[in-house]
């Protein structure tokens, strides 16, 4: 299936993962002209329970729109880290919110405390999802930070632009810190290389 | 979260005197006894969803929500055993028990 890249953003109900999925898909699809398909889990589980958004990005037309073998998994709570890890390709990347995920299923996991960063640095837990997106983009280059910013700003409520910009910066920063510590191979991103200097 | 915290505190204050007392008088005949007794509040953590209802409406501010959004017993000694926390918990995750003497030390 060639240039197909599968991402899953998972966590619990209130963490804004569906919105994150849409933003990611828009960044890739609208701002970078890729083919994208974004899906999500519905159902009573979505009622305060688990929440999951999937994004498939490809250079060709996407037939099957759901993710089956993940290239990238974001897990924002322990349960989703546990359950969806099995869908990850061996060479896939797992990123967890270490605020809630205390046991990672692999040592290769990238651990960043998105929620804690959001709470401490911005006083608003609800932007943890945006921080996470910036981190994912930085780590895997699946979309450029520029596209991501454009997509974020187009979707978030008026008046929160600054907050979200800061969130993007924080996410990118946290990811860069990781990349400095660890070898890039350990993160297995397939995304294209972007000339990317937006958030130093 | 912040918003919730605020609401809760306000609620607890205004609720304090009136609501709880009325409720006790009406619903618990054992009121006078209860005040002499000591009570213990238990949470089924597995079932609790952290909604904050138990603590918000505790007439004696016995309960409070912690940083992680979980209910905690902040002032155990003030509990009057009215069981409003228990009755209002949507998830059957609170249990108010009368303390037995031995248990008092353990608590």
């Amino acid at each position: 299936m060639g240039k197909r890249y599968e991402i899953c953003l998972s966590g619990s109900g209130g963490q804004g993962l569906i919105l994150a999925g849409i933003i990611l898909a828009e960044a890739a699809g609208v701002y970078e002209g890729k083919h994208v398909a974004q899906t999500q889990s519905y159902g009573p589980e979505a009622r305060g329970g688990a929440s999951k958004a999937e994004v498939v990005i490809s250079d060709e037309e996407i037939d099957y729109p759901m993710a089956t073998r993940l290239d990238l998994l974001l897990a924002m709570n322990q349960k989703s880290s546990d359950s969806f890890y099995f869908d990850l390709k061996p060479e896939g990347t797992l990123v967890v919110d270490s605020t809630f995920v205390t046991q990672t299923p692999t040592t290769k996991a990238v651990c960043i405390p998105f929620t804690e960063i959001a709470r401490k640095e911005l006083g608003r837990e609800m932007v943890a999802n945006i921080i996470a997106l910036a981190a994912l983009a930085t780590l895997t280059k699946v979309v450029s930070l520029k596209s991501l910013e454009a997509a974020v700003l187009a979707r978030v409520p008026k008046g929160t632009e600054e907050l979200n910009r800061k969130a993007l910066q924080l996410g990118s920063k946290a990811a860069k810190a990781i990349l400095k510590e660890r070898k890039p191979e350990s993160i297995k991103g397939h995304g294209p290389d972007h000339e990317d200097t937006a958030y130093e | 979260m912040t918003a919730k915290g605020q609401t809760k505190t306000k609620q607890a204050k205004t609720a304090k005197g009136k609501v709880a007392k009325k409720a006790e008088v009406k619903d618990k005949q054992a009121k006078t006894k209860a005040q002499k007794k000591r009570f213990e509040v238990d949470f089924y953590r597995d079932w609790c969803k952290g909604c904050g209802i138990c603590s918000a409406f505790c007439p004696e501010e016995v309960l409070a929500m912690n940083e992680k959004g979980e209910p905690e017993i902040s002032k155990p000694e003030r509990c009057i055993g009215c069981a409003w926390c228990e009755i209002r918990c949507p998830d059957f995750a609170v249990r108010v028990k009368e303390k037995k003497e031995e248990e008092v030390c353990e608590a």
Partner: protein
Amino acid sequence: MAEITKLVHKYLRHDKKFPHVWCPGCGNGIVLGAMIRAIDRRAYRKDDIVMVSGIGCSGRLPVYVDFNTLHTTHGRALTFATGVKLAKPELKVIVVMGDGDATAIGGNHFIHAARRNINLTAIIINNNIYGMTGGQYSPTTPYGMKASTAPYRNIEHAFNIAELAVTAGAVFVGRGTVYHARLLDKLIEKAFVKRGFGVVEVITHCHTQYGRRNNMGDAVAMMKWQKEHAVRVEKSADMSEEELRDKFTIGVLVDRELPIYTEQYELVRKQAKKTIPS
């Protein structure tokens, strides 16, 4: 002091996973508790209770309790319950419905069950919204509020469920809130005891779909709202219209006597048997 939760657990299903599906803070769990307390006080046998519901968040309620439970199609709970009751009048049939379930798609069955005075207890969990499907306005969403299908505010007038029940013929009508959880179990108990069609409207909150959209805050804030806007019906008599403007009454609103269907049908049977040629 009664160990309420222990008591509740006695009636929950052991083979069903908990916590239940509802959002953190959803009032449905409080209603469930009140219902169980009322049942326990009446000392009904579990085998004798049939709990029937429609579709909606509220409709998920019966699955958690260890009775004969029946989760029907959307809006039709009362019709199924009617069949159960007529086929086995000795069963205690309790029907749980959402506001949409009971008064939107199921509105007709509601007024007809009331008219027939079928011996059922109908508990309507009124959260002023279609919770399960994502916050569309219901026939009880107040004028002027927002909903996912009323982005410019709702222009429809809300039903008064209790009045509708009375006009249609219900013999017992009570209204409570989840905030007033102890009054609630008493009202439900009264409805259980009542012979004929008894209705308890429970004012509750759906902070997820309704509160959030209307800046009414979380579950705690909405329960506070209930506290502040509910007036005991006994007290309301002494209050001016002005004082009652944005309030609603709670308590027993109507309690009267009318012949009930199952008993009347016994008379039909007697009559019918006379016509059999011997």
